[in-house]
């Protein structure tokens, strides 16, 4: 069966520091991969998605970037974090119409 991992689970970072969040999927090949952000008590906002290695589509211009160095690995990065980058980050995968989500990363920028 397929599983999706995200780490770290929680992260506290100072403003201006770099960021790297990692997501990996097991048990499937050539998945579509997604990064979402969720503010407290709100819906999800799609940040990036990828349909293959090295193929990244950005949905919202911002301080973040994404990369897909391997088929089942998706990385969310920033060179310099802003206070507004705080939130809950969810990775998801799909091979058909349904997206399945990872456990998420809580990011607090101070």
């Amino acid at each position, binding site marked *: 069966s397929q599983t999706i991992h995200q780490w770290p689970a929680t992260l506290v970072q100072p403003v201006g520091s770099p960021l790297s969040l990692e997501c990996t999927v097991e048990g499937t090949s050539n998945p*579509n991969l*997604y990064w979402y952000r*969720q503010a407290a*008590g*709100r*819906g*999800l906002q*799609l940040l990036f*998605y990828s*349909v293959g290695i090295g193929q990244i589509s950005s*949905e919202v211009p911002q301080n973040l970037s994404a990369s897909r160095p391997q088929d089942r690995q998706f990385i969310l990065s920033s060179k310099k974090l802003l206070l507004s980058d705080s939130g*809950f980050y*969810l990775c*998801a995968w*799909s091979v058909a*119409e*349904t*997206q*399945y*989500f*990872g*456990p*998420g990363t*809580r990011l607090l920028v101070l």
Partner: protein
Amino acid sequence: AQTVTQSQPEMSVQEAETVTLSCTYDTSESDYYLFWYKQPPSRQMILVIRQEAYKQQNATENRFSVNFQKAAKSFSLKISDSQLGDAAMYFCAYRSRLWVRLTFGEGTQLTVNP
């Protein structure tokens, strides 16, 4: 652009009773998918149920069922025999057949009272 509206920010239900969560959406497309996801306090998004727009039959998964009204662009979720573990934020989501993005509503917080 597609939009998804959940007009009930909060709902409550007594244990063992039935509750219905509302969702409406706006689209000009005829072929799409609709989903309900559950987000418990752990915040992991869990798929509850899925509906394909070309199927007239309403989807059912155990105690969860939907009332899909395509002409009215309505997609409500009914939870029967509510359990304490059903307490969560519920999100309605839309996906076009043509595009990979999911569009989410703002969610409904469901409380289950013992």
